[in-house]
């Protein structure tokens, strides 16, 4: 049996997108990256915490950031705070999608004021991930 769950045709925009995946848990990172490749998104950069991603942000200028919330030494929330305060508007407006193991009110209420494009509960299906990314890129 082979069900990818990603057969829906996504626009070329999402396939051309450069995406940062910031996730400290190896299994989840592998799972997310696998789904993104199946969606045709190949310009991928993986980081295991917000500080590592932030360091490469200005150089690599991603179109989208998918980030976990709870990480050390820098959380996803802090990463987005730093991104939003960038003097470069191309960077400060990068759409961000939070990857979260729960959709608790506390997590959502912390994320929303940061202008995130949305959040997705782990583990997402490929199709849910694709839909969320397409929506985020369209509205950016």
């Amino acid at each position, binding site marked *: *049996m*082979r*069900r*990818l*769950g*990603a057969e829906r045709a996504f626009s070329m925009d999402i396939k051309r997108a450069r995406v940062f995946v910031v996730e*400290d*848990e*190896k*299994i*989840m990172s*592998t*799972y997310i990256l*696998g*789904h993104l490749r*199946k969606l045709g998104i190949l310009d991928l950069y993986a980081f295991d915490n917000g500080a590592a991603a932030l360091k490469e942000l200005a150089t690599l200028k991603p179109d989208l950031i998918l980030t976990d919330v*709870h990480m050390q030494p820098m959380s996803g929330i802090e990463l987005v705070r730093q991104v939003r305060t960038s003097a470069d508007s191309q960077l400060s407006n990068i759409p961000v999608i939070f990857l979260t*193991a*729960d959709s608790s009110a506390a997590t959502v209420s912390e994320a929303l004021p940061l202008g995130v494009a949305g959040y997705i509960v*782990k*583990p997402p*299906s*490929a199709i849910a991930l694709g839909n969320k990314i397409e929506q985020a890129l369209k509205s950016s």
Partner: protein
Amino acid sequence: MNTSPTRPGPVHLDTALALSQIGDAEAMQGMLVMLEDTLASDVPKITDLLLQGDVAGASHILHPLKGFIPIFCNAALCDHVSQVELLSKSADSAAVSAAYAALRPKLEQLLAEVAVYLADGAQGGASNAPSGR
């Protein structure tokens, strides 16, 4: 007459579910190896942390577990992990220790099921049939 001993199928591991979510068998195999390593390390570590009264430390490990367990396991185990993880955010050490004492044997059984699946796969005879779903 077939007299070969029958081995009970997995209760918690659902490889058909994992395959449907991950998308291909090779990737699933690699992720099961990661799951085996993670469980072997984290399951006893949670007990150690709780014995030291470090509920926040235990919660820090339970949280990602809650996130990736649904890739591989049936709903009953996912629900149990979620309950203990939720408890670890607010309850005291004794309550979390008692809750984890009930969860730990299931995680150990999951670890054993993953090991059996990977060993069978290495011999070319992995079964995809879960019995607990």
